[in-house]
């Protein structure tokens, strides 16, 4: 598993990459009340805004961590946005992306480096 400095996690699953946010991010956001997911089939470039998370406090953007095509989104979050707080590293993934260049993941942090970042 890899981590971005924007507090996203990326997990390789077959030929896809699953993306979510870390526990640290979920805690900082506060209670999530709405998740705006991208459409399946959307082509994204690294740093495109792909997901908007609304918490009781504010709206935050999730950026595409790598180039590729969104092939699946977690529809459960439309009805149960609170899952992002309950299980951010597991059930509450946001989308699966078919990467164009898996080596883009090399730029990101491993777990130890991410833990050092968030203290």
């Amino acid at each position, binding site marked *: 598993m890899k981590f971005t400095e924007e507090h996203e996690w990326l997990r390789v699953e077959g030929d896809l990459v699953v993306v979510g946010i870390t526990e640290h991010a979920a805690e900082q956001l*506060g*209670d999530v*009340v*709405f998740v*705006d997911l991208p459409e399946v089939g959307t082509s994204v470039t690294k740093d495109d805004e792909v997901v*908007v998370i*609304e918490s*009781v*406090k*504010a*709206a935050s953007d999730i950026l595409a961590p790598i180039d590729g095509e969104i092939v699946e989104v977690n529809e459960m979050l*439309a009805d149960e*946005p609170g899952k992002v707080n309950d299980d951010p590293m597991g059930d509450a993934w946001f989308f699966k992306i078919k990467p164009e260049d898996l080596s883009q993941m090399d730029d990101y942090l491993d777990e130890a480096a991410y833990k050092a970042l968030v203290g």
Partner: protein
Amino acid sequence: MADLHTTPLNALHRELGAKMVPFAGYDMPVQYPMGVMKEHLHCRARAGLFDVSHMGQVILRAPGGYAGAAEAMERLVPVDLLGLAEGRQRYGVFTNEAGGILDDLMIANRGDHIFVVVNAACKADDIAHMRAGLSGVEVEEIAGRALLALQGPAAEGVLAVLVPEVAAMRFMDVGVFGSAFGELWVSRSGYTGEDGYEISVTEGQAESLARTLLAHEDVAPIGLGARDSLRLEAGLCLYGHDIDTTTTPVEASLSWAIQKVRRAGGVRAGGFPGAARILTELAQGAPRARVGLRPEGRAPMREGTALFAAAEGGEAVGHVTSGGFGPTIEGPMSMGYVPRALGAEGTTIYAEVRGKRLAATVTALPFTPARFKR
């Protein structure tokens, strides 16, 4: 952050694990470990304790006693103060010459003087405004007193153990009571739509009182985050957002706060800044109105979101002034200004959220029923 003011409860907030943020020049708790959503629901179900010590407390004294102070103050607010009974308070607004709102405030008749509570961000300007506009009136900013709010259905039971007199108070009553925490200035009012009290206590006794209230199993500390969602569900205005110098009280749907004696045909009609415009709007209607909005989907429509009459095309007709998620109504909610023709309950309005026009329905305020003890 070195320049931030602190309240007498600052150390207690930190001990309780609050996340602190700068607010109106004060270091204030935005949430405690419980989190905004649970704090909000706890306040509606049981009781919440809020530190509102950043707000301004001011006493107005005049040679003519209460009536003298009230007569003078009526020149600054479109409120019937001479008709306000002893031991009662009213909501009011300071208006400017253009009919806009300088601040909103609570005004109490305390027998031989007026007691007012104003917003933290406006208090220096408000005090200067009163000193300039109230000749012959002594304007005393109260230093050395904290202000707590205890809100929710359990508030009466909790506070009455310490101050038995509060049980008999009705909504918007005020009283001064002796207690184990010194003299308390209590009003039965608040900013949540719930029954409850606002309690002015000396700085030296504030933490002790707060700890005693928090020791009750029904009471949890509530931060600014839930304070905002509670007041928005209750349909209450936040100064600087829903009301400001560009909104008149009539546009802001606060006409109820202007009693008949201050309106055209009343015994003391007008006589406050901006009266010409405000009295005309009272008689003929204002061009726009503050309304409640319930978005159709789950996406919150936040402050600043543009509002449109149609799903496509056309210019913006208004904007959202407060918006978020209502934990009690379990959905998004907003307040905003729309043209009068679009202000009727049930009207569909469109809000542009991230480039998409989403439907919302004009809805009666409050979003949650008020539970005041009338």
